């Protein structure tokens, strides 16, 4: 199994919690977004308290702080884009791309602008797939959109569907163009009839009309759906709770976002 954690740490020094998360989940890759701590400092602590194998894969993008403990996974950057960093990810015999995303924030960008961002992100991912000649893609990050927002599911946007069955036919045609389907498993984690929290962010202001939002998501390209084992929203970092008494992200002691843990199987045939 390959385990990848994504966490928007809200510009706080949460290194201690990040190390606890890494120990508790035995994560192979940790991606921190909005990390105000210099990545070299985070790496030093990860090496000292979790594993000396951790390293920072080569990258020119500064938005995402990536830490990897298995050199076989590669994780080196192949594209630095508009709020994205695309990495090579090698799992078993599978060569894929991991596109890290930080969408436009809700406070300063209306839904039209964020939809436009989703469209340009999709165009950019198609470009990188073409340049690298790789079909398999995992898109991971803080999209600042919910799974049901138009940009997430428009054909020319991220074309991300609710179930594995929805993406089985691979592509859909729109205005004479074919667009690859992505499976968005975050749909299955929405609301209070799930095992975990109802979303990754709780906000009742005019930017969060539903209370809970699922801004942190993973999208799985239709070609690697069978490698996808699962995704969990994490509410604790080892022994430390990162949620408050109401089960919401505890922004006082941790972040206003919960981290997500994505697990991929490597023993799947090409």
């Amino acid at each position, binding site marked *: 199994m390959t385990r990848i954690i994504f966490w928007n740490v809200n510009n706080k020094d949460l290194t201690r919690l990040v190390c606890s998360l890494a120990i508790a989940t035995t994560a192979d890759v940790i991606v921190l977004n909005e990390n105000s701590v210099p990545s070299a400092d985070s790496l030093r602590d990860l090496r000292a308290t979790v594993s000396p194998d951790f390293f920072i894969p080569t990258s*020119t993008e500064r*938005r995402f702080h990536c830490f990897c403990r298995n050199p076989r996974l590669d994780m080196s950057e192949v594209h630095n884009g508009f709020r994205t960093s695309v990495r090579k990810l090698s799992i078993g015999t599978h060569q894929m791309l991991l596109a890290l995303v930080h969408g436009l924030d809700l406070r300063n960008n209306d839904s039209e602008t964020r939809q436009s961002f989703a469209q*340009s992100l999709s165009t950019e991912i198609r*470009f990188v797939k073409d340049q690298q000649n790789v079909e398999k893609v995992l898109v991971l990050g803080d999209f600042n959109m919910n799974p049901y927002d138009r940009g997430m599911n428009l054909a020319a946007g991220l074309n991300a569907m609710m179930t594995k069955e929805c993406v089985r036919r691979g592509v859909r045609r729109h205005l004479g163009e074919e667009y690859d389907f992505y499976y968005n498993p975050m749909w299955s984690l929405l609301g209070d009839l799930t095992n975990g929290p109802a979303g990754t962010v709780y906000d009742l202001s005019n930017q969060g009309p539903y209370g809970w939002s699922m801004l942190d998501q993973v999208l799985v390209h239709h070609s690697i759906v069978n490698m996808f084992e699962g995704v969990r929203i994490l509410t604790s970092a080892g022994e430390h709770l990162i949620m408050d008494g109401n089960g919401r992200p505890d922004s006082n002691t941790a972040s206003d976002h919960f981290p997500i843990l994505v697990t991929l199987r490597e023993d799947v045939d090409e």
Partner: protein
Amino acid sequence: MSKFFPAGLKLDDSQTPMQILEEAMRDWEVESAGLLALVLQLAKSQSGNDLILVHGKHVPSNRTISLFSVVHRPGNPYPATIQLRQDDLPKVLRKSFYEEGLGKALGIMSTVQGRTVNNPWVSDTPSEFRSKLQEAFNSGLIKSEVLNLVAGTPEAVEAAKAVEAVEAVEDPADLQKPQDDVE
């Protein structure tokens, strides 16, 4: 001399933004000796306009970076606008930056009254587009991003070694020797 023909309009210069960008592609190939390439990607904007995404590529490693995009209406190459990537650098790494004054607090007043917003990246003619394109390529942000793309690669390490070797030969002490010999 005509008083009524549009000033600055040259009918023998009707290159589209795409043709000008293709010229830029050739420039990059020649100037970088094939190390760097510009890659142009065609797309549609959300509002249906034609979009040319301009990417830089480090050819030996096949690593890429999105530089900026050019937008114009379908079938009408002008006006065209250049949309630069967002500058996320902290203030300490910027040569200059805009500091908000009291004007921001009063900004709502100007919004109520309406104001003219200028877009300095819009071009109405090929010559204007060429000039703004040069300006975009020469912006500090693009220069540093392109250098970051090359830095740390095996080719860059080799080049640095070559420069070090040349600098070692050009050491003032080394240069002194032949003069001594002449004496």
